[in-house]
């Protein structure tokens, strides 16, 4: 039982993981992630990959919206940029996987920086609407250019690593999950650096941040760029995972999904990105499960999609009204309870 932490140096205080308990849990988590594919069936592996992709993208959006305070409804557009980059690179030039993913991130990052340019002049809600424009403009570009395959989109070959085709969920798991874990560590580490702290300062009060010597435009663009880089890589993974991408794969509702995921998970928290994305991805599946169990389930399947929409909306509303800090805060409260037990917190 851990009841407190003793820090003896600034380095210890700023450490990413500050206690033995955390190290132990991290090791357990890593072991669980490694063992999971051998124990789970195809359906769960499919779901795990999907969750991992969404976690990666949510972590990116959380950098922008949760930490820098710039609300964006354009995440799907950047994922689309990444996905199309991967698809085009693979189909045209057959470049290797690692390069494709990196290129996906970089292309999306450039797109993000372009969309971020108005962010110095335009703030808050105005900016949110501008990013909606990004989604529509991206959709239009995907649908109307020859090399993106127009409205029919592109179909890809499976990713190939060391002569092995990544064509099952089991194999893709070993690509998607490690990349996501790596990106999560990157995000968590970011906020121990000057850049991450500048982001937080901008979120808390941008004018004060500027007075303190943070170049607003530079850091806002950097935040947009980093966030879209994450989205781009996630989009690249998405392309390898589904292998078919069309302009319709990246609708506005997808951007809303990611925003909802970080609201429900917890804004400005890496744990929040994980919990939120996992939760929001699992809820529809859970609903499907419940529908299957209900008597006369076959007649009810027409209601599945609308019920999902309603639940999705209700989750956003309920979390914002009753738990604005999200699942991450609930987790922290639970942890605090056990730390302080048997005392009241």
């Amino acid at each position, binding site marked *: 039982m851990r009841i407190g932490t003793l820090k003896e140096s600034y380095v210890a205080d700023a450490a990413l993981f500050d206690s033995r308990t955390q190290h132990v849990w991290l090791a357990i988590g890593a072991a669980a992630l490694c063992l999971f594919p051998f124990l789970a069936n195809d359906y769960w592996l499919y779901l795990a990959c999907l969750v991992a992709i969404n976690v990666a993208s949510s972590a990116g959006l959380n950098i922008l919206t949760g930490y820098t305070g710039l*609300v964006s409804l354009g995440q799907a557009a950047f994922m689309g940029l990444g996905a199309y980059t991967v698809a085009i690179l693979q189909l045209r030039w057959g470049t290797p996987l690692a390069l494709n993913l990196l290129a996906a991130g970089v292309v999306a990052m450039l797109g993000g920086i372009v969309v971020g340019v*108005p962010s110095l*002049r*335009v*703030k*808050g*809600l*105005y900016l*949110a*609407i*501008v990013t*909606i*424009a990004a989604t*529509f*403009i991206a959709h*239009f570009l995907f*649908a*109307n250019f020859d090399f993106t395959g127009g409205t029919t989109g592109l179909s890809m070959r499976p990713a190939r690593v060391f002569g092995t085709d990544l064509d099952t969920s089991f194999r893709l798991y070993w690509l998607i999950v490690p990349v996501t874990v790596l990106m999560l560590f990157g995000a968590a580490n970011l906020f121990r650096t000057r850049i991450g702290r500048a982001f937080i300062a901008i979120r808390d*009060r941008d*004018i*004060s941040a500027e*007075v303190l010597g943070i170049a607003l435009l530079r850091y806002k663009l950097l935040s947009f760029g980093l966030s879209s880089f994450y989205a781009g890589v996630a989009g690249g993974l998405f392309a390898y995972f589904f292998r078919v991408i069309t302009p319709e794969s990246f609708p*506005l509702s997808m951007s*809303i999904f990611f*925003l*909802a995921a970080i*609201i429900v998970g917890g804004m400005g928290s890496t744990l929040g990105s994980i919990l939120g994305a996992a939760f929001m991805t699992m809820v529809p599946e859970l609903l499907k499960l419940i529908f299957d169990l209900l008597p006369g389930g076959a007649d009810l399947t*027409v*209601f599945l*999609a*609308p*019920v*999902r*929409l*309603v*639940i*999705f*909306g*209700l*989750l*956003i*509303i309920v979390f*914002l*009204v009753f738990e*604005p800090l999200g699942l991450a805060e609930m987790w922290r409260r639970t942890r605090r309870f056990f730390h302080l037990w048997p005392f009241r917190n």
Partner: protein
Amino acid sequence: MDWGYLFEVSLTGVMGGGLYALAGLAFVMVYKATRVVNLAIGEMLMAGGYLFFTFAAMWALPLWLAIPAAVLASGVLGAVIEQCMIRPLLGEPPISAFMVTIGLGSVLVGLVEMIWSADQRRLPDFMPTQAITIGEAFLAPKVFWGAVIAAVFIAAVLLVFRYWRGGVALRATASDQAAAYAVGINVPRVFSLSWVVSAMLAAVSGIIVGSIGGISSSMGVFGLTVLVVVIVGGLDSVLGALVAGLLVGLVEGLAGGYLGGEYKLLATFIVLVFILMVRPYGLFGTHEIERL
């Protein structure tokens, strides 16, 4: 250059813009009073359209009863939304309320699909069907009469809020909440009022939009254009909503007429980005002065 065609396309666009202006007015009303950006405005429009459909087509009420009933029911919906979702978020950052309305939009679409299914439906006709000609230009009668109704409503709203006590209270609250409180205006009541009126206006535009193009659960897309309209006009400006409504309608008409239907939304969003780069607070929005 076919000037007749240009005139016809522009006229149709501007008339369609009248509907944007009406829906934009519904949006601005809420924003001015409560500082909530209502992203669900399109879905509220849709709700109004479906309520009218229920009363007029399913329950077969006469039109003079069905329309007011739908509008009143939408008003109730507005009051419920305000009480359950917006009131608890008073004092929270504006982004929270904005996101709640995103959730609301999703809930409304889901409910509509659950109750009425996702199929497109036709509203009963209630407008004259004789084609309208202005000079050389032919206009679809529904578009013309829709624009006329929208114009009448806009004028009525402007007059009401100029002279009616409730309207004065609303304007007072919008310009200074604390001062409005101090002179005895019941500010929370004004908040509810603004949502009720906004929902009713949205219902009216929903009924018109629905009777022009039919109603479906994807009608909320109309709301995106309305959003562009109010941002271009400046969020808190009634005049801005009217001007931008006509402007965006015109741009959309021209883009649709000369480039094709898929360019409509793209053109409006390009106008949006362009105007925001030049005037970050829209054409007529208040430039907020920020201090530390």
